């Protein structure tokens, strides 16, 4: 059995790519190494409300809570607040990622996509160097499945790129290593998402508290792998939880680990192959957020692959339309935010406290990292000299 398209991985980027390729008439198969889509969850589960207009998710089963705004705490506890009213109600959701992923897979299935579970990709089928399909291990049995296009949607740990000579190995300074509890019996005072910064709190990253309703919250940490020691993420998170009165009577209902690329963009296209999602490093290097990118760019990937199937042209030249188009969406933002990430990493706690103090009464135009950075550059033109040219680059 030959397919037009094989998607390796059933996360958001894989399912959305598969759906739009199938809607364009392609015969699509998703191979998924796990036995349940969306599980284990590897995510903080926050997403912007801008997805409302994208026709990606139906119903509300995937929504755990609605965010009223965000508070960012500097190392000495100075708070910078971004609220929904100053942001024109444009905030976000805390979601159930397992249901979210399964809803996206359902949309793909409705479009005719086939899904094979317990199917781990172990290599590419090649004929004199030309990619012809995927080798999989399905319930301990090796099988070859042919296809014209392979989509690497296999996450931060992507192997598909490597098999096609795209160097996807991350430097430790370009990876956030994460741990997260879902805690119950928490005293969530409101529906704000809280972020805590500081070299001792979370070196090269932050701790987050995302409420899921009034007494459940995701409490997680991301630290830069280059600043990490074995087990440090979990240890720092445990220390934070032990000291916070909101969690005095809390108990865990889930514990999970995660890994988030905070890297510069990479090449994403070869003959007969493209990369999407975390495999393509489509994650904001400051926030570590990538879900909206998966949906927006997955649609582009599916459309381009669908056209490739219609014209039977699977060359790198043809598929390059995908890379051109994702660069239009996030190329500039990724480059800018990578530079901002490097600038922030050079700052000490004292500087963070000073910056937070200068913004504590600031009225933000919108709830975004861009509006935060713009405010900082405006207030501290000399300190953030290196960032000034970047601010001419708009979203």
């Amino acid at each position, binding site marked *: 059995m030959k397919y037009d398209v094989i998607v390796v991985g059933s996360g958001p980027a894989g399912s959305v790519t598969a759906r739009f390729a199938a809607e364009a008439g392609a015969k699509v198969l998703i191979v998924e190494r796990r036995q349940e889509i969306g599980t284990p969850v590897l995510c903080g589960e926050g997403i912007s409300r801008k997805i409302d207009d994208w026709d990606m998710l139906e119903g509300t089963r995937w929504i755990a809570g609605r965010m009223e705004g965000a508070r960012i705490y500097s190392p000495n506890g100075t708070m910078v607040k971004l609220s929904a009213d100053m942001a024109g109600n444009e905030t976000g959701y805390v979601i159930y990622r397992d249901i979210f992923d399964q809803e996206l897979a359902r949309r793909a299935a409705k479009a005719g996509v086939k899904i094979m579970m317990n199917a781990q990709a172990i290599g590419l089928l090649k004929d004199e160097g030309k990619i012809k399909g995927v080798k999989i291990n399905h319930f301990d049995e090796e099988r070859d499945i042919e296809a014209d296009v392979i989509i690497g949607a296999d996450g931060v740990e992507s192997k598909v790129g490597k098999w096609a000579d795209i160097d996807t*190995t*991350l430097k430790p300074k370009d990876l956030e290593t994460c*741990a997260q509890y879902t805690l119950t019996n928490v005293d969530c005072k409101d529906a704000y998402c809280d972020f805590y910064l500081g070299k001792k709190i979370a070196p090269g990253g932050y701790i987050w508290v995302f409420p899921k309703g009034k007494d459940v919250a995701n409490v997680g940490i991301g630290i830069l792998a280059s600043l*990490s020691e*074995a087990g440090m993420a*979990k240890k720092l998170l445990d220390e934070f939880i032990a000291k916070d009165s909101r969690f005095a009577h809390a108990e865990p209902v889930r*514990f*999970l680990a995660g*890994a988030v690329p905070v890297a510069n963009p990479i090449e994403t296209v070869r003959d007969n192959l493209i990369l999407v999602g975390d495999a393509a490093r489509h994650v904001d290097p400051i926030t570590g957020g990538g879900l909206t990118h998966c949906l927006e760019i997955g649609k582009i990937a599916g459309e381009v692959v669908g056209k490739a199937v219609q014209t039977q042209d699977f060359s790198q030249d043809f598929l390059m339309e995908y890379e051109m188009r994702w660069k239009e969406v996030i190329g500039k933002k990724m480059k800018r935010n990578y530079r901002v990430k490097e600038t922030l990493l050079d700052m000490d706690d004292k500087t963070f406290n000073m910056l937070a103090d200068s913004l504590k009464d600031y009225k933000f135009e919108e709830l975004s990292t861009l509006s935060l950075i713009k405010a900082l550059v405006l207030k501290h033109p000399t300190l953030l000299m290196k960032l000034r040219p970047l601010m001419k680059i708009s979203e």
Partner: protein
Amino acid sequence: MGKPKAKVDTKECLACGGCISVCPQDAISWYANKALVDEKGCISCAICIRTCPVGAISGDGAL
């Protein structure tokens, strides 16, 4: 005599994939949905050990 190789405790591994993504030798892969170090490829650099958020990788592997 080389240094001991990295070894994943599969009971502790939560399958985040971080170690696989940073291994400079591409010596870590999924096996039964847990990370597994290929001892032949491992150069004992310890990057995966330091990266693991829950401390599931140690330098206790074969010499």
